């Protein structure tokens, strides 16, 4: 998520929430994970990055890839997963500039805390209490459902944060349904890949999983596949019914569109007071720039001067920089890459 769709207040609030959440995760993780194992967590972050590059061809040209939060929670526990995801998101922001500096709090909250914890809770709930001797089929269903729920939960928080910020004009229900809908599909792909990784580990290295599987029952049964499909259908069905209840909203939007076909006249006709006010404003401030209702418009020349002045200054800075860099000793101490 980028900076620009957030207000500073919401961004600040979620930075605080992220810090508190990570602090709690650290405390819990230390019970099982010693301080000195931090290098391992860093390397695991690099693993998730690399795993995200493995594309899985679905149909035709479309392909999906792993997000990794829930898989890590299943393999290393949710507390460690939260800390690893926080590091991944920080590097993603700093090195790849994917996700803004201010939005880091929201991103850590959604993908670093919500996704692993919700995903792990669902995974554990499906798995049941018995820690040893669970059937492989149940394990597969649990990892699929966990990944689906984790990804969806993380995505569902995004429209809430954007709506709290008031930066997007898209009505909250519409945005929410679209965002969750898209991420149900992404979550299903995540679930299928998580499932495949767990399947591999059960068969090849069962010792890295914290759940023991009854021997002789490692294969995927048709039942497990059927249950996975049923869980996905349940999620989609819930969303569709939610979307259906929002349909009148969409229709309202269409009719509103027509009313605003000529926005200026329509708005003026409906607001005689506003017309009076803006007429008065035009007389007193002859050259306003943006006149938003209730705000004193700045005189136009400031902004035009600002734009032209900025462009001119940028040009000067550019020429200056070229000159300065020319005067540097050629092939000096730098240019290692």
């Amino acid at each position, binding site marked *: 998520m*980028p*900076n*620009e769709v957030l207000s500073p207040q919401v961004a600040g609030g979620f930075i605080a929430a992220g810090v508190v959440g990570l602090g709690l995760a*650290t405390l819990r993780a230390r019970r099982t994970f010693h*301080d000195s194992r*931090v*290098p391992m*967590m860093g*390397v*695991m*972050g*690099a693993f998730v*990055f690399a*795993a995200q*590059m*493995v594309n*899985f061809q679905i149909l035709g040209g479309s392909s999906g890839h*792993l997000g990794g939060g829930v898989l890590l929670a299943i393999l290393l526990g949710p507390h460690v997963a939260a*800390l*690893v995801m926080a*590091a991944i998101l*920080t*590097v993603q922001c*700093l*090195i*790849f*500039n994917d996700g*803004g*500096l201010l939005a880091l709090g929201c991103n850590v909250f959604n993908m670093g805390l919500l996704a692993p914890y919700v995903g792990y809770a669902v995974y554990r709930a499906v798995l049941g209490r018995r820690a040893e001797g669970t059937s492989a089929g149940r394990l597969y269903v649990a990892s699929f459902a966990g990944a689906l729920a984790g990804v969806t939960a993380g995505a569902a928080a995004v429209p809430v944060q954007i709506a709290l910020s*008031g*930066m997007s*004009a*898209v009505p909250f229900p519409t945005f929410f349904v679209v965002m969750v809908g898209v991420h149900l599909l992404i979550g299903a792909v995540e679930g299928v*890949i998580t499932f*495949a*990784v*767990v399947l*591999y580990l059960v068969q*090849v290295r069962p010792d890295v999983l914290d759940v023991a599987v009854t021997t002789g029952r490692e294969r995927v049964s048709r039942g497990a596949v059927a249950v996975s499909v049923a869980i996905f259908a349940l999620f989609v069905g819930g969303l569709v019914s939610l979307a259906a209840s929002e349909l009148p909203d969409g229709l309202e939007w269409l009719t509103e569109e027509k009313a605003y076909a000529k*926005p200026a006249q329509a708005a003026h006709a409906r607001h005689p007071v506003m017309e009076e006010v*803006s007429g008065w404003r035009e007389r007193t401030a002859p050259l*306003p720039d*943006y*006149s*938003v*209702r209730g705000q004193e418009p700045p*005189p*136009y020349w*400031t902004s*035009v001067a*600002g734009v032209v002045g900025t462009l001119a200054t*940028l040009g000067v*800075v*550019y020429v200056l*920089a070229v000159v*300065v*860099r020319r005067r*540097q000793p050629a092939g000096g101490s730098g*240019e*290692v890459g």
Partner: protein
Amino acid sequence: MHHAYIDRFATADSPVHRLDPRVKLVVVLAFTVLVVSVPKYEVAALFPYALLPFSLLVFGGIPLGFVAKHLLLVSPFVVFVAVFNPLYDAEPVLVRLGAGGYWVRGGVLSCANICGKFVLTVSALVALVSTTRFSDLLQALAWFRLPRLFVLELSFLYRYLFLLIEQVLRLKRARDSRGVGGVRLGWRLRATGGIIGNLFVRTLERGERIYAAMVARGFDGAVRTLRQPRLRGVDAAFLVGALLFVAAVRFGGPLVR
């Protein structure tokens, strides 16, 4: 290779590269907060901010084409959110240019505002990352009391990132060379699970080896580096100048008028 270009300018040398990483971090953070706090219908007011990231980029010798390409690469989500504003926000706003004025939808302005802020804040971040070594940036973060363990985790993530990416590229090449032609969905899924599972097991073992090697060399949890940050006069001048500039652009408008 896909990953080699990401921060390839960070190890170069320029006046901007030589600035104290702590100073650059503070300036970029303050810049981002102030730009994001600009009201949503302002567009022309965003222009003067460009001076800061632009100066850092050109004096740092970062090619502007590289920055533009990078901006496009990370833009999809912000464009996806902003592009719907003109449809939904029909609030009429009067825009005047010279003698003529016309009404536009508020959504058009807020869309331009979001995109403008995006270009400003991301290019500032590119300017920071492209002119600062990651290890120096981490040292700056540690100086600002980011938990030591988290900084250590970040440094390991960065150190092994490229190694593991190359490993995964080899695994993918192996898969692709064995899977020529149409193969069943189930097989493809199994291969994906195998690659990632295999990578996980290898990473787990690698992590254990790394830790054992570090303990053998006397690792006690502290990381010591030779490059010590030092605040020079230039750094202080840049810090004060840049902060004053951004604050003046953000809060000084009414004074100029």
